[in-house]
């Protein structure tokens, strides 16, 4: 089984700050991490490889600093990493991004399984991975808890709102992983040292001769951002100091009953 995992470097959104005047991200001091769901995808890939043999390749699209997450993936056990980077790719929405990644996968493939996280914690769209599958004309299953190879197919446990669906999927297939899928392993010391020395080839626009220029970057993106703003909150609530908790509770319940909320 040859597997490729798409990973994204994201700002740690739990520590994000927004410039309230410019409505832009303050990146200074905010740590960049491997998108947590992608880490689950990588773990899934490594487990399938350990059982069935093959290779695990990781790709990431982004600036040079995204090599950090690629090295982290190598240290966890990935065999090969590529950075997809070019000014021409900047400003891509999910359509254009998924198209570029599909072209990269075509170039460095073929693969039996393409993996990614269900969504990235910065954009939170959850649609890039399955869009890659559509660009490649591939079968896809999202929200996958577990997968096991069986002959020329994979048996997949997929989460849905109502429970878990067990299904059989033909290869090649694209799947996306979620937090409950597994607990990602730690990097080993040897892995970290090897990863530091590893060569991470860059794939640029010029390396993808068949790519359709009208489908990439800002110009190739069907959606565009019209405006951004920060959520406004206006504190209008009634403050009740619970100096005497029982009195406060009584008063609150009284108010709720009066307002016919209870």
């Amino acid at each position, binding site marked *: 089984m040859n597997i490729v995992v798409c990973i994204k470097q994201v700002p740690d959104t739990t520590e994000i700050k927004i410039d309230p005047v410019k409505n832009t991200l303050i990146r200074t001091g905010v740590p960049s991490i491997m998108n947590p769901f992608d880490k689950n995808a990588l773990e899934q890939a490594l487990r399938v490889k350990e059982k069935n043999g093959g290779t695990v390749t990781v790709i990431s699209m982004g600036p040079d600093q995204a090599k950090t997450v690629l090295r982290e993936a190598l240290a966890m056990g990935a065999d090969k990493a590529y950075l997809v980077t070019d000014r021409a790719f900047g400003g891509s*929405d999910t359509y254009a991004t998924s198209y570029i990644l599909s072209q990269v996968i075509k170039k460095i493939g073929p693969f039996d399984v393409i993996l990614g996280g269900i969504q990235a914690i910065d954009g939170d769209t959850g649609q*890039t991975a399955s869009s890659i599958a559509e660009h490649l004309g591939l079968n896809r*299953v999202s929200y996958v808890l577990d997968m096991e190879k069986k002959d020329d197919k994979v048996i997949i446990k997929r989460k849905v709102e109502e429970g*878990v669906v067990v299904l059989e999927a033909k290869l090649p297939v694209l799947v996306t992983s979620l937090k409950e899928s597994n607990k990602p392993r730690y990097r080993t010391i040897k892995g970290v040292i090897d990863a530091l020395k590893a060569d991470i080839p860059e794939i640029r626009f010029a390396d993808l001769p068949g790519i359709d220029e009208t489908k990439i970057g800002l110009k190739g993106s069907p959606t*565009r951002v019209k405006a951004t703003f920060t959520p406004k909150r206006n504190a209008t*609530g009634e*403050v009740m100091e619970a100096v005497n908790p029982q009195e406060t509770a009584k008063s*609150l319940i009284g108010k709720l009953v009066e307002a016919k909320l209870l």
Partner: protein
Amino acid sequence: MNFENCKDVWVFIENFKGQPKDVGFELLGQGRLLANGLKQDLCAVVIGKDVDESIKGAEEYGADKIYVVQGDEYEDYSSDGYGNAFLELINKNSPNTILIGATIRGRELGSTIAVSLRTGLTADCTALSVEEETGNVVWERPAFGGNLYAQIICGDTRPQMGTVRPNAFKKKDKDLTNKAEVVRENIRVNPAAIATKVLDFLAAKEEGGIPVEQAEFVVSGGRGMKNAENFAMLQELAHLLGGTVGSSRAAVDAGWMPQARQVGQTGKTVTPRIYIACGISGAVQHVAGMSESDTIIAINKDASAPIFEVADYCIVGDLFQVVPALIKELKVNKG
């Protein structure tokens, strides 16, 4: 751009084993507003094996027209089977706008269609409106964990598409007098051509009662709960109210509560009658999932906690005293 030939607002009515999901009906309410803005019709799209309940619901929730694709091969969702049926409907009828519930299947279906048509898809929208001069839908959505909101437009292609989370909007009241035109399209897929085959289905075990997104009363706990055991008193409070227990991401990450109970940007969106936040600081990513609740009560010992900025009742105090006091008071009230 001239989109004169692209007409109508479509809403996908997702069903599971013949049971339509509420999100489809919630979106018919929003779809009507967009259709009015665009001066076009509101249409529902139903795909499945058992479609009667979905058709009935779509009519009651206000669709002018209902496109139906029915067949045994649509009993289980598959992105290729459903995607193909939906695409054929689109190619034949050229809709202007498509709304899909941001469910697990809906997100997959949405990207399948959008890529195939080379059009824009905006995920997890929380507000929708129409730009009158252009006819573009303005899709509003949170990003960066709810820290930033963006308005997105898809100006050069049609259909313009978006997904919307369950519970982001409330269902409108049923209109039992509405009559919809039902259009049945004979679109078939050879079951052998579908690349996935469902072998088994394991229904979710209901831990802890009513799902958080369906409850009228939600009592949520966060980091301030300190451990899993302390959630028992939230359980008791929720039980007295006839509601259920929710959680912030911090409490899920700490392993105190299961992910299914998480409220927020990466969890569920809830809009209960009363939301009680206990020991939750109110990070934007949490607030993004509960700020539309009818009434919000926050209990926190830190008077400057951001949760108080969205609360209707701000109880400044120790939750380990206030929650038991509320339980006691409710018991007295119930007599």
